[in-house]
């Protein structure tokens, strides 16, 4: 039986990789994938705690997070399409209209 803290550590490692990818990559699609990675790391932690506490509430929350992730992916990819159409580029540095 693997203790819950190992799952939380694994979740933290995945989340940190997501943060790193979000910060170092310039391709808007890979940045978006890093966000998905962070969402999944959080889901893993929630499921691990749900098993530890013996209640299903954590799993229901993960279910709702997945719903939000699906909605976010749909709208986010539409925004990426618009971004590419307007800027002719997939580099996040080209989205500098609101840059101070």
């Amino acid at each position, binding site marked *: 039986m693997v*203790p819950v803290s190992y799952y939380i550590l694994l979740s933290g490692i995945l989340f940190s990789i997501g943060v*790193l990818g979000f910060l170092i990559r310039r*391709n808007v699609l890979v940045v978006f994938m890093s966000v998905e990675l962070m969402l999944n790391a959080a889901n893993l932690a929630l499921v691990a705690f749900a098993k530890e506490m013996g209640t299903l509430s954590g799993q229901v929350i993960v279910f709702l997070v997945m719903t939000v992730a699906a909605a976010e992916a749909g709208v986010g990819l539409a925004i990426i399409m618009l971004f590419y159409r307007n800027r002719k580029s997939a580099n996040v540095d080209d989205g500098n209209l609101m840059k101070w």
Partner: protein
Amino acid sequence: MEPYLFIIFGLMAVLSALMVILQKNPVYSALSLIATLGSIAALFILLKAFFLAFIQVIVYAGAIMVLFIFVIMLLNLRKDEFGPEKRKFQRLFALIFSAFFLIELFIIVRYALLGKIGKTLTIEADFGTPQAIGRLLFTDYLFPFEIASILLLIAMVGAIFLARREE
């Protein structure tokens, strides 16, 4: 058996997550992300979240990643457009920041979590099955469930509106 499976799928998840952020080509990144999501689905099964494991494979690895691949194909990116970050100091700062974040988390787990919880609770036989989750969704979590359906409708309308070509 469980520790071995945890090590195998945990390593697979971490390695493929690293591949996601280190690959130059976004198609390879997307394929690595599918491997990560699959490993996380396996970990869900180890955590007795059977329903969520299947939802993970169907919704994430199936639907969302197909959408990603589809958009990558539509954008038809040239090789030079997805080169890595050129500014060295930004990459260094990002590495320090995420390492700091990880160390912080290790400290929290080490001092706040390790050994504190872990009393053996009796887990019901139907823990994590679609029946149990469905029962909870339609009783205690009915309102969030309905809100989620409205959210999906709004996301669908929003995506169609955004991706529409201006006449």
